[in-house]
Structures are given as structure tokens and as C-alpha cells.
């Protein structure tokens, strides 16, 4: 740091300080400037200040929640449109590839994976020597399928009781609701369940879980607000072991993966959940289908702190497509195990990549792309 440098900086500061009087005497209320003039003369494109609405919004179609196919079909609408278009197209049409990339990006798959899928499909198509629409559609499907890991996606029970499932995630993704649904699922499998109200932070989280316990015929162990969540989980395991329950499903407080103290707390929780007599079989990350690229960071951090065994993708019944869960599966090898496709207790279903792709890529002829959709640009 030279003196010269400092002088330049000091000069800058002084000029600013001096400008303040001129600015501030006009009063605080004028300090913010409407967007359209904010750039002053720099807004060369000021005629564009009133932006045209981009055609990014897929047609909203009101289908009542139901099976995976229906849920995904609704979510996958624009994929269907696109595939209708691919079929009537040709692998040499760059516009269709561009449209495909945009569709993948819109599903929150992320730039890197979207590019990988497109490039892979292009290469495969070239290698096959074909370029008609159905070959192209097939190549894309294969590339997408290749992003999923192989193997079972059913949740696991231990041979000996009590089984423990630990449910983790950031705030507001639907952890507590998912636990209610998991509880119903386990009950349907004939298991006797204890719910551990490990979210001692959010106001009334335990009350919410209690209602789920009542609805699904489970028991609940809860403590006072602010109590150590590990002790709640510990007590639940003890209770399950002593009273012959089959399993514990443990709720945890939502935590942003950037809060290191909370991630440490999670590590401790995991250690508690795997101690004798407990058999920790699943650590499930709940991921909201509307999550963007941050979901990948979430998955990475939770995998690091709690060694997650699977993902529950929630809120797939909205218009979000949940591509980020696929990105997480492709990058971390953690499978999407369950998807939430509705608000009812039995709306949590085991995920199947093939079924998902079937629904996702199903052609909806009435939504074929018009010339206008493709646009001149």
C-alpha cells in the first residue's frame, strides 16, 4: 500500500463526503430513484424498461393430485411439449436443441448437467447415424436415464428393532409433513412407530408433529422448546426399545447448511441415532422441488454432516419440476427415494426413474410447439 494509493482513496472519500450535503439536503425521501431512471443517461435501452413478459410460464393445468404419473405429468408439461416437437423434428435442427436446453434449465437441472445431457445426446445421435425425431428423443431419454443411480429406492427397516429414520433439511421444505406421511407409510407396513419431536427450535413444531402422531396412530416423544434435540432422539429410542416399538422417525429443526453450529448439532444427532440399541437405517434429506441451484449445495453439505442415504423430494405437485434433486443424485449418488405429490397422508410415494421419465417425457400432442413458441430468434 503506497502513499499514493491512500491519497487517491482519501480524495475519493472526501469528494463523497462533500457531496453528501448536496444530496442529503434534498431530503431522505428522494434518495431512491425509480428503476426507469436509475441508470440516468446510461439506460440506452430505456424503451425496454417496461419489459415484455418472457414466455417462461408453462400453461397452468389444474389436475387434482394423484399418482406419480399425474403429478409429474403436470410438472413435466413443457417436457411433453418439447418431445412432441422433437419427434417432428430432426437432430440437425439447432433450434430444437436450444429449446431442449432451455427446458432442462427451467426444470432446475442446472447448466452443467443440462449441457452434459445435450452434448451426450448429440454425440450418441451422431454415433448412431440417425437423426430423425424419435432417435433424438430416445437419445435424450437415455442421457437423462444415465443421470440416475441404480438400485432399490424402498426405505429400509432393520432386522432388529428399533429402526431409526432421521429426517433432515433446511427450513420450510416440509420435513414435519413428510414425517407424518412416513409415519403413515410405516404404519401401513405394520410397524409401531414413535415420532421424535427433534425440532425444538421452531415455534409449535412439536404441536404440528403431535397432530401427525394422532392422525397416524403413532406415539410421540417431545420436550420443551429449546431442549437439546439429541436428548429427545435418545429418549425416543429408549422408549421404543423399552416398550417394544418397531421404529423411531426423528424430526429435526430446519437448518441452513451454512450455519456451522447447527450442522455440528446435526452430527451429534446422527451419533445419538446410531448408538445401541438403535439401528439407524435411513438419513433422509428433504428437498423442496421448487429449490434452485442452492439445492445441490444443500445436498452436498448435509451429505457431509449426516451421510444422507436418500432424498425426499417434496412439493412436486406444484409447477416446479425438481430437477435439482436429479442434479444432486447425479453428483452425489444419493438416490431420490420418495416424492411428495400431494397434501394427503398417502401422497408420499416411492420414486421410480423410469416411471418418472415416462411421465416427464410423455408427449402431449395438443401442446406441440408453434412457430411462435420457437420464435424467430
Amino acid at each position, binding site marked *: *500500500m503506497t*502513499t499514493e*494509493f*491512500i*491519497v487517491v*482513496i*482519501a480524495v475519493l*472519500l*472526501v*469528494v*463523497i*463526503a*462533500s457531496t*453528501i*450535503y*448536496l*444530496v442529503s439536503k434534498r431530503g431522505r*425521501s428522494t*434518495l431512491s*430513484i425509480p*428503476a426507469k*431512471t436509475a441508470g*440516468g443517461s*446510461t*439506460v440506452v*435501452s430505456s424503451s*425496454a424498461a417496461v*419489459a415484455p413478459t*418472457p*414466455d*417462461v410460464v408453462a400453461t*397452468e*393445468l389444474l389436475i387434482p393430485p394423484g399418482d406419480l404419473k399425474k403429478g409429474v405429468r*403436470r410438472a413435466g408439461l413443457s417436457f411433453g411439449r418439447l418431445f412432441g416437437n422433437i419427434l417432428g423434428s430432426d437432430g440437425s435442427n439447432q433450434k430444437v436443441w436450444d429449446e431442449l436446453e*432451455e427446458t432442462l*434449465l*427451467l426444470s*432446475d437441472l442446472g447448466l452443467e448437467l443440462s449441457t452434459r445431457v445435450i452434448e451426450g445426446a448429440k454425440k450418441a445421435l451422431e454415433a448412431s447415424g440417425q437423426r430423425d425425431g424419435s432417435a433424438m428423443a430416445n437419445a435424450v431419454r437415455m442421457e437423462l436415464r444415465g443421470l440416475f443411480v441404480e438400485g432399490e429406492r424402498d426405505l429400509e427397516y432393520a432386522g432388529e428393532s428399533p429402526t431409526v429414520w432421521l429426517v433432515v433439511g*433446511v427450513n*420450510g421444505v416440509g420435513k414435519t409433513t413428510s414425517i407424518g406421511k412416513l409415519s403413515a407409510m410405516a404404519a401401513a407396513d405394520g410397524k409401531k412407530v414413535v415420532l421424535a419431536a427433534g425440532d425444538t427450535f*421452531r*415455534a*409449535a*413444531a412439536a404441536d*404440528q408433529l403431535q*397432530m401427525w402422531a394422532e392422525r397416524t396412530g403413532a406415539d410421540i416423544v417431545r420436550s420443551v422448546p429449546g431442549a437439546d434435540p439429541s436428548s429427545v432422539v435418545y429418549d425416543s429410542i429408549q422408549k421404543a426399545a423399552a416398550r417394544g416399538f418397531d421404529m423411531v422417525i426423528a424430526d429435526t429443526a430446519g437448518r*441452513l*447448511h451454512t450455519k456451522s453450529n447447527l450442522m455440528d448439532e446435526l452430527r451429534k444427532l446422527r451419533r445419538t441415532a446410531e448408538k445401541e440399541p438403535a439401528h439407524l437405517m435411513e438419513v433422509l434429506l428433504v428437498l*423442496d422441488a*421448487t429449490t*434452485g*441451484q*442452492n*439445492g445441490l449445495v444443500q445436498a452436498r453439505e448435509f451429505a457431509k454432516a449426516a451421510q444422507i442415504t436418500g432424498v425426499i423430494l417434496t*412439493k412436486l405437485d*406444484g409447477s*416446479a*419440476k425438481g*430437477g435439482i434433486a436429479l442434479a444432486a443424485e447425479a453428483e452425489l449418488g444419493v438416490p431420490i427415494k420418495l416424492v411428495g405429490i400431494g397434501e394427503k397422508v398417502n401422497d408420499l410415494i416411492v420414486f421410480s426413474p423410469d416411471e418418472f421419465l415416462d411421465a416427464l417425457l410423455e408427449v402431449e400432442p395438443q401442446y406441440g410447439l408453434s412457430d411462435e413458441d420457437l420464435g424467430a*430468434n
Partner: protein
Amino acid sequence: MFDNLTDRFEEIFSRIRGKGRLSEAEVDAVLREIRAALIEADVNVGVVRLFVERVRANTVGEELQRSLSPAQHVIKMVNAELTNALGGENLKIMYASKPPTVVLMAGLQGVGKTTAAAKLALWFRHQGRNPLLVGADLQRPAAVEQLKVLGGQANVTVFSLEGDPVRTAVAGVEEARRIGRDVVIVDTAGRLSIDKELMDEVRKISGSISPNYTFLVIDAMVGQDAVNSAKVFNEALSLDGIILTKLDGDARGGAALSVRQVVGKPISFVSTGEKLADFDLFYPDRMANRILGMGDVLTLIEQAERTLDKEITEKGAKKLKGGKFDLEDFLEQMQQVKRMGPLKGVLSMLPGVPKEIRNADINEGELVKVEAIISSMTRAERSNPDMIDGSRRLRIARGAGTTTAAVGTLLKQFKDMQKMMRSMGMGGPSATKKSPNRAISKKKKRR
């Protein structure tokens, strides 16, 4: 929140900055990178496409060739588009002439509506208002419980009824009137934008309480779908603004850009932490500058207003305007500026400061040296630096415990600064081009 984006833009621009000429291919490469940066930040793909197209339309061809510094031109265009995309005035609440002012909170499930409602109530209390919270989320188990706990923490009464959300909302507004509350905040159930029944319900609530403000609560981590739901909510409720939550994570918050662009509604408030007080107004115009590394002058001004001595600053400003700003004033103003806190913090809000300087380890002691040099001058020398010859220079250097070269540098810098100030349009609009302070001079001109 947008730190990541800021770094990316800085990186992209640093590669073209200083280039005398930009080929179309180079512009293309820059635009591709800008596209990638925006997409990775969750800005909607459609918005990104339009963004890039508009920048391209304004940067290729004749204009770029004519421009003296093509890189600057490109940056200027990106800035204009970004300000446009993110821009908008920050919210100024207009309280209802006949209280209470009714505020409706809506949004998808899990975005943090209930917490945001309590935070907003606390914010109103800090504005000297007396709010009432109404729990009309009768859908989610224990949502009203949660609101009651949070209301207790914020010291705000919570009203709720069982059964019908519409009736609850109406009764809540009535209750506010009855007990003399001037603001009432109605929390509603989270809903999917495609759930017709629940959208109808919130529309009904809105219709029967005629809110003065309707806020859509959005999670900063949301991806491409943000625009879809915002659009549906806007059609149903005609939003006044957005409340962006969970900004304390590392999400890049590109949804803020897209939603404003597609729905035309600005981000009004941001929630930046788990504590109830972690909540404040959002300043869109400042954010665009911050993303581009253009500084945050308005925040700086506010900070200055709080810490600076008005009279001294006023005097300096007058002299500056009259072109009579001398070293005496410089010294006085510098002592003022020091009160604004560490240089580094102030620098981060300044426009046009290169990354190297922004991140440099600034030795505050150097400022003391500058002060010492000026203090070692006589009054006459300070007001007329031209009279400082070799022997005076030596005396000053001795007095300040430094070299004559250092004194010379300071004098030269000061002279340059005087020139700059004159050209900065303290009097006229001319020659603002190369000044690093152009953002400030412009802001001033607009008034």
C-alpha cells in the same frame, strides 16, 4: 446475498476491461458467461435470454465500434439492463388515512410466511406503529400456535378464530379497529399456485378485507419456478411487493431478478436471519450496483448522514461547488470521513473500486501520514499549494517525518483531484466520462 454473482461479473469484466477493441466473438463470449452466471444464480432462463438479447442488441455493431472503450460500453449496457431488471424504488409505506392499514401475507408452503409476518409486525413496531397479527392459516397444523409464540416474542398481540379463514381475517381487521391498532397483518395458509381451491380462498380473503398491501413471500433458494408462482399470485391478488426470506444462506437469490422482471413487482423486504429483528426494507437500485461491483452509494450516504458533522460537511460542499476546495478543507473533510469507520468498509460501498483495492490490506496508518503532511504546512500553503517550492517541501517533509517525494506525490494527487472535481460537474454536466465518481455525480444531477 449476491456476492457470488458479484465475483463472477467482476471476473468476466476483468478479462475485457482495458481492451481497445472488442470483436463480435469476444462480445459473444462475454455474453455467454454472463448467461451462465445468471442461470447459476437461479435467474429464470427466459429472463436471462431477454437480458442477454437486449445487451447484445445494444452492444454489437456501429455503436460498439464508435465507442472509445468498448469494454466500458459493454459493462454499461449490462449495468443498465441489470438495474432495469432488478430496479425499482424501495417501498415507502403509505399508511391508510383511516386506520388500520391492512397487510396481507401470501405465498407457497414453507417459504417462511408466518415468521415473516411476525418480523414485519416487529418492523412496524420499530416504525412507531401498533400492529395486530391475525392468524388466518388454519390449514397447517399448529400454524396459529407458531404465530402466537412469535407474536409473543415480538410483543405483538395475535388474533385468531377457529374454522373459516375468511371470517377470521375479517374479524381480525374488526378487532384491530376495536382495540385501536393502526396496522393489521394477516397471515394466510401456504398454498400451491396450482391449487385452485386455496387460491380462491386467499382471493376471497383479499376481497373481504381489501388490504392496503399484499406481499408475496418468496424463499431466496427458489429456482426457476419462482416466476410461475409469482405470476399466479399476482393475477389472483394484485401484489404490491415481494418479501424475500432466508437470505442468510448462500443462495444467490436470482429469483429476485426474475420475479421483478416477469411480474413487475419489486422486492420490498428481505429477511436475513433467524432472529425477528433480522428484517429490513430492500433497496433494489442499490443491489444492482452491488452485483456489478459498482458500490452502494446510497447506503454510504445514509451512514455518512449519521456520523458526519453537518456544518463542516456543508462548508466543504460549498467550497467544492465553488471550485475553492483547498488542502485546508481536504484535511477537515478527511478527519470527518475517518469517523465513518474503517476505510475498507467504506470502500466496499464505493463505485468503481477495483477488486484489488477492495480486497487489499489497507493500512489506516497511511492516512495519518497524509494528515501529518498537511498539518505541517502553513495556512497559506494549504490554500495555495502552488507556492510550495523545494525548500518549503523539505521543511514540510521534515515536519511530517517523511520524504519530499511523499509530499510531492500528495500535492500532485491533490491537484489532479481539483481538476477532477471541476470536471465532475460540480457546476456543469460536462466531462463526467472517466471519473470513477460518475455514479455519484449522476445521482446528484438527477435531483
